[in-house]
Every structure is written in C-alpha cells, then in structure tokens.
C-alpha cells in the first residue's frame, strides 16, 4: 500500500515538474488574487495588514479548486483513470494515493505562497510559522479529500468546469471555517486545539468516506 501511494505521488509530482500546470494555474492566479485583494481592501479603507489570513484561505480555496480540476482533466485526457481502474488494487487505496498527490501539490503551493503573503502584508511570520503548519496542512488535506471525490463526480457531467466549484465549495465550508480559525490564532502566536481537533475529525470522516465510495465513482 505505501508502495502504491509513493508510486502515484512521484508520478504526479514528476508530471507537475514537467508541465507546471498546477503551478501556473494556481500560484500565478493567487498572485493576481492578492493584488485584487489589496485594492479591494484599501479602496474600502479596511486595514490591509489585518487580512493576511483571509487572503491566504481565499487563495487556497480558489486556486485549489482550479488546480484540482486541472490535474483531473489532464488525467482524463491521457485515459489514466481507465488504466488505474485496471490495476488489481482496492479502489480505496487509489483514492488515498490520489488524495496524497493532490494534497502534496496544494501544500507546496501554499507554502510558496506564505512568504509572499508575509511580504505583501508586512507579516512577521518568524516563530509563528511552525504553529501555522498543522492548521494549514490539515485544512488543505480536508479540502483536497473532498475535492478528490467531487472532481470525479463533476467530471462525468456535461458541464464539469462549472459544476465542480458549485458542488465542491459548499461541502468544504466546515474545513475552511476550522482552518481559518487555526491559522488566524497561529498568526497571533497561539495554537487553536479545538480547531485542530475538528480538522482531524473532519479529515478522518472525509478520508473514510472517500475510501469507501471511490470504487463506485470509478465504475463504468
């Protein structure tokens, strides 16, 4: 099992390094979002420096959605799912592998984004950076766990690109609420244990749901 996950992880990472698809679509998109954020905040005389956490999660939500959709489309084009389904493996394991790959990509993206946010918002991350990691990683994991499922669901519809955010984003609201709270506390130097506990529970539920239902999604 760890073999399979590592295999798919390295495959997805290598493909990403070659094509830079997710990087281009997610990271650069986030940069533009940050610019819009600045002008939206200052023109309504909101203290821009108070919003780094908001900006971070808006970037994760938007660019994560784009990235998930993009990677899935690439897989579809190369008929990778057909090949995966033929693999003599439990589809639940395939889900975990796919989830691991997606989560790694989005986590790397957000870690690249953090210094930029620190720079733009005059944020002194310093020692708080480590405190942010659990909330950030768990939040992204939950976001991606649901996304790995919903992206397959929406890909089978006629309007997959429109439908994906519509069915994905409402489902991840609990994750986003808890994640936002965790990182906000972390930026102030505290650790929100309640938030982390909730995120752990949510991840557990999402992952087991995915583990059990992925087989039904891949059927033909």
């Amino acid at each position, binding site marked *: 099992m760890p073999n399979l996950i590592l295999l798919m992880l390295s495959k997805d990472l290598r493909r990403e390094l070659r094509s830079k698809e997710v990087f281009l679509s997610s990271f650069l998109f986030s940069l533009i979002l940050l610019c819009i954020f600045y002008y939206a905040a200052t023109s309504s005389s909101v203290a821009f420096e108070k919003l780094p956490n908001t900006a971070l999660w808006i970037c994760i939500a938007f660019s994560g959605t784009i990235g998930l959709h993009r990677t899935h489309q690439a897989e579809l084009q190369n008929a990778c799912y057909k090949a995966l389904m033929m693999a003599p493996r439990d589809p639940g394991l395939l889900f975990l592998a796919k989830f691991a790959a997606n989560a790694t990509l989005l986590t790397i993206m957000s870690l690249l984004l953090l210094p930029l946010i620190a720079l733009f918002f005059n944020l002194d991350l310093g020692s708080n950076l480590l405190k942010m990691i659990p909330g950030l990683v768990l939040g992204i994991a939950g976001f991606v766990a649901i996304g790995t499922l919903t992206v397959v669901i929406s890909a089978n519809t*006629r309007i997959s690109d429109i439908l994906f955010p519509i069915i994905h984003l*409402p489902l991840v609201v609990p994750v986003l*609420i808890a994640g936002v709270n965790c990182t906000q506390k972390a930026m102030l130097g505290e650790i929100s244990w309640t938030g982390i506990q909730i995120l752990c529970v949510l991840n557990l539920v999402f992952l087991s*749901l995915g583990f059990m239902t992925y087989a*039904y999604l891949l059927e033909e």
Partner: protein
Amino acid sequence: MKTGSLLPQTILLVLTIATMETALIWALQIAPADKLQGDVQRIFYFHLGCIWPGFVAFFYVLYASIRYLISRASKWDRRAFASGQVGLAFCTMVLVTGPIWAKPTWGVWWAWDARLTSTLIMWLIFLGYVMMRDYIDDQKMRERLSAVLGIIGASMVPFVYFSTRWFEVQHPKPVVMGDAESGIKDPNMVIALLLALAAFTLLYLFLWRRGTELAEGDAKLSELRMRMNALEEEA
C-alpha cells in the same frame, strides 16, 4: 397514476390540509403574541416547521443513497432524489422566512448567525445535488454519482451545523432581543409549534410521495422510448 395508491394519497392530502389549517389558526390566532417581539414571533412557528422536515429530507437522502449503492435498485435513487428536492424547497422557505424575521428582531436582514449560515450552506449543498442530475445523460451513471454525492452531502450536514456554532464565539452576536427559543413559554405556543411541525412533516410525506411517483413515471417513459426505438430499428 395507480388506482391502488389513490386512497392513502387522498387520506394523506386531507390530513395534511387539516393539520396545516389547525396549525395556522393556532400560530396566528390562539397562541399569544411574544411579549418582546410582538406578532413577528409568529413567523417562528412555521419557520421551525419548515426546517425540521428539511433535516429529515436530507437524512433520508443519506439513507436512500446507501440503500441504492447496496441494492442498485433504481427505486432507491428515485426516492432519494424526490426527498432531496422537497428538502431543497423547505430549505428555501427557511432561508426566505429567516431574514424576514431577522429584520424587525435584529434590525438587519442578514446576520452571519450560525443558524442562518448553516442553512445557507445546506441549501447550497443540496442545490448542487439536485442540479447535477440534469447534466448526466447516462442513467446508471447518474444514479450512482448522485448516490455518492448524496452520501457525502448529507453526512456533511451535521458538520456544517456544528462548525458554524463552534466558531461563532468570535463574532459579536447581533441578537437585540432574547433568543427566539426562550420566548416559548405559553402552552399554546408549544401547541402551535408542535402543530406546525406535524403539518410540515405530513406535507413532506405528501410531496415526497408525489415526487417519487413522478420520477417513476419518468423512468417508465424512458423505458418506453427505448422499446420504441428498438421496434423502429427492427421495422
């Protein structure tokens, strides 16, 4: 459609209308007006009356979706879908009456109060569930994917509900008056509330039955179409 199901249908309809009528009279006439909120508080009876079958509807979606994935019988898919649709309608009623109650009570139409927020998210989740079906052509695929989405969506409902409450402490509560629930003291208020709950539960059952029958008719129609196509090809 079928004559056999006509009698219980009619009984259910009559019962629904009668209960709804009594609930209306109790809520608008017999129950005393709230001391603080005045007559606006009467919205609350039917507001709560809507949300209860809404929750029931979504949990039924979960149940029927699981049954579908186990049995692969299309009837469970139709039941789940009909339930989701009715739940969405009830949720819409809650979302519309909520702000109408909030305006005179809190002074604003919308506040990011946990109850309103969670209902909105729930509404969005099930809007996606109901919408998605229109965009999948293959019947088996549609049934399977909706079942999975129904399971994910319905199991998310409690989390939406709790997560909005856990983190609410961070916001100042916009409640000007006391909580609505604390307002119910008079026994007639309790009766009005119970009657409204009963009326909307019956209404849910009635609408869900009708919706299922409609979906059954739809399935029959597409089956006939297929048969006709086959006949035409033979000819």
